[in-house]
């Protein structure tokens, strides 16, 4: 009986170790691939049309691939905001859109029309606050998203006219092209000065930003 116990422990130990080693090898391979891709195609990370939050000339750029209907993006909004507050002159945030959910594309256009009215952050925060109401993944209720934007003070008549413009559609298409080329398939995906997170998490993001800030400080 004791014999079998050892065999079972050995098998389970080897299986767990193989899984762990395999997982970390695989993740580091994916990570370095993404890093290489981002550095080869750095023009795909930041576009002229992309919204920039924070000082334009900041030495550290966080690029966030963002979906307004994504819960994790919502959860990370305060995290990113805190980082910006921590380094008010050194960090800027560039938002790229990843409309992975149904209806997200329209909400992205709503956000962009808010940018034309200089109400980007107001509307963004209002949309994120109301996200649980409008962003049901099966059947998003965009009327609720519109009313959230209106409550934030958006001029809806102007917004609707702006949303219909082909410029916004072209911008959205460009973002989708870029995220496909960079193999971004989850939101939020962060790049800090072109470097992807070693693994996903708020702590990893804060550490990477701290590293880049101290690099830029020298």
């Amino acid at each position, binding site marked *: 009986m004791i014999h*079998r*116990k050892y065999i*079972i422990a050995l*098998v389970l130990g080897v*299986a767990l170790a*193989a899984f762990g080693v*395999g*997982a970390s090898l*695989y993740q580091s391979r994916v990570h370095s691939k993404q890093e290489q891709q981002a550095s080869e195609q750095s023009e795909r990370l930041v576009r002229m049309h992309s919204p920039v939050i924070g000082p334009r000339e900041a030495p550290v750029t966080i690029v966030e691939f963002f979906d307004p209907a994504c819960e994790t993006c919502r959860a990370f909004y305060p995290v990113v905001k805190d980082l910006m507050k921590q380094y008010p002159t050194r960090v800027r945030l560039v938002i790229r859109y990843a409309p992975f959910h149904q209806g997200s594309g329209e909400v992205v256009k709503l956000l962009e029309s808010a940018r034309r009215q200089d109400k980007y952050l107001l509307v963004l925060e209002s949309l994120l606050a109301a996200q649980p109401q409008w962003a049901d993944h099966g059947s998003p209720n965009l009327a609720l998203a519109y009313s959230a934007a209106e409550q934030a003070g958006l001029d809806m008549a102007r917004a609707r006219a702006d949303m219909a413009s082909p410029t916004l559609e072209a911008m959205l298409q460009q973002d989708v092209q870029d995220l496909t080329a960079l193999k971004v*398939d989850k939101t939020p995906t962060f790049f800090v000065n072109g470097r992807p997170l070693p693994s996903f998490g708020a702590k990893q993001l804060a550490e990477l930003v701290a590293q880049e800030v101290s690099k830029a400080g020298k």
Partner: protein
Amino acid sequence: MKRTSLLLLAAWLTAVVATGCALFIGEVMGMAPCVLCWYQRIAMFPLALVLGMAFYSDDRRGAVYALPLAIAGAAVAGYHSLLAAGLVPRAWVPCAVGVSCADQKLDFFYGIELPWLSLTAFIVIAVSLCLYLRKTAK
């Protein structure tokens, strides 16, 4: 340890490796399992637990209970393999929404389709269990 127990051990090892691979492909590589893959997982995951217990306590009945799971899994994997090989009309594919069941390829397996690996695992388990049951029959 009796030699017949080795058959049980072989079946269990196969189930552990297959379960580990399925979890790796799904959780680490982030490949979403299709409907047919889910049915195969439903058959394979319990095998990794049940056969471990059967081997530990050298319980013949463990093999008796595990065998139907292995056969059911082999049936689904067989159908899935035929589908991947294009021998079953695509119109029968039960997954219209979500992930395609017909083309699931992993490049680092050098073009070997996953359903083939799954089918092999289920067959190895089923055959080992059948031999074990025959040799331990009273």
